[in-house]
């Protein structure tokens, strides 16, 4: 055992409750967090896929949400109805069932995809619906006088949407979008059910081969918490960069 590892193990042993602990009526369990450390590469790979899937779903989902929100605000009646139905169906059914439907329907449509792509598609479809609803609220918060003014200046509907409505709307609802994104990132643990090998799936297979479920789940939970806090910080930075500092210059 390398000296650094031995020192770390010594530290772990020194903390009461990690080495050997008695619960209730003489039940003993010896924690072995070094098993987790032995598999850090696999765990990091799983976490990296979670991060990639979530980030991609954020970007593509936001694009989808923007198009849908525009269609809902200014599109023809039929299109509005379709968008409204899409939003309501996604918001009132579980993500897990959406994943199953997308995973099984893509091959039926003749699109051969792996589990990762199906997971990404499900996340995009899910985030797109929530994003549409959140953006709609932001768009409604833009004073109507601004839109009238833009139209009076000769901007087309699309130009008005892009330059006058979207930016302030995004600024208003940015915190809500960020929260929804964190929820999506956490919910992505569910895609392990279709065998996409993100953090949860990696954790599952490791705990079943090492018989150390508590340690692995505990560590993975901590990793998710760290990723949630990390994403929150990054999104906070983006908000500051784009909407606070960007406005001034």
């Amino acid at each position, binding site marked *: 055992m390398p000296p650094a590892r031995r020192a770390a193990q010594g530290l772990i042993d020194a903390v009461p409750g990690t080495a050997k602990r008695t*619960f209730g009526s003489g*039940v003993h369990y010896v924690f072995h967090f070094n098993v987790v450390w032995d598999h850090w590469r696999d765990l990091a790979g799983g976490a990296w896929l979670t991060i990639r899937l979530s980030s991609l779903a954020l970007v593509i989902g936001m694009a989808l949400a923007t198009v849908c929100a525009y269609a809902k605000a200014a599109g023809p009646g039929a299109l509005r109805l379709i968008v409204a139905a899409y939003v309501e*169906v996604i918001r009132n059914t579980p*993500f*897990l069932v959406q994943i199953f439907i997308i995973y099984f329907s893509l091959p*039926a449509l003749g699109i051969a995809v792996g589990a990762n792509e199906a997971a990404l598609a499900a996340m995009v479809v899910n985030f797109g619906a929530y994003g549409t609803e959140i953006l709609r609220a932001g768009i409604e918060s833009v004073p109507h006088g601004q839109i009238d003014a833009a139209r009076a200046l000769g901007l087309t509907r699309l130009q008005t949407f892009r330059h006058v409505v979207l930016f302030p709307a995004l600024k208003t609802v940015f915190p809500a979008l960020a929260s929804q994104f964190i929820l999506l990132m956490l919910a992505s643990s569910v895609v392990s059910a279709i065998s996409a090998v993100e953090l949860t799936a990696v954790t599952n297979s490791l*705990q079943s081969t090492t018989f150390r*479920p*508590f340690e692995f789940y505990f560590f993975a939970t901590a990793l998710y918490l760290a990723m949630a*806090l990390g994403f929150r910080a990054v999104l906070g930075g983006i908000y500051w960069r784009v909407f606070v500092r960007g406005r001034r210059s």
Partner: protein
Amino acid sequence: MNRSFALPEFIYLLAALRWTLLLSLVAFLGGGVVGFVVAILRTTDSRILRLLTTGYIQLFQGTPVLMQLFLFYYGLAVLYDMQVDAWPAVALAFTLYAGAFLGEIWRGSIQAIPPTQWEASACLSLGYIDQLRFVILPQAMRISIPPTVGFLVQLVKSTSIAAIIGFVELTRAGQLIVNVTFQPMVVYPIVAALYFAVCWPLSQLSRSLERRIDADLGVKRHL
């Protein structure tokens, strides 16, 4: 010869729906008690209590429900070296999950009451408990109803995750039916439709309550 999806299979799904509803109800009631305590503690003057309850909310809102479920189901099992039944593990995990979200919603509702209400009731020489009971909570409760109903939708949907550890509710029942019929494109949309039938009315209720309360507050503002 495969079985195909017919009336008996549909009735099986309907029967499984009651476990989804029961689990949601248990989690909502248990989470309601936890959430109430958390909301009150988060608005007290005690720093340590605020810190503890904030930590609890951060922990449960910042980690996936699935992980919480695994920890309670498999983690506790090895810790105590015994088989944990699915029901208590799932009920406990979803209770704590609901408690974190409801606590946060209700804290917001309590803090939305203007401080002048606290001050006015203090001037009437009401104690802390009486201030809460007669002045703050009745008003906070009104504001909190729409988001609480909205969270109920989220809770019903998230109980589907219990399917992953083998707890037989609607989604798991759907998986079982798919295993015998090999008709995922029939079964899963029906499962989704059943969830929709439960969640959509709740969503609409939440929305209309919100509109009504906004209208009431609007009237008050104009007085």
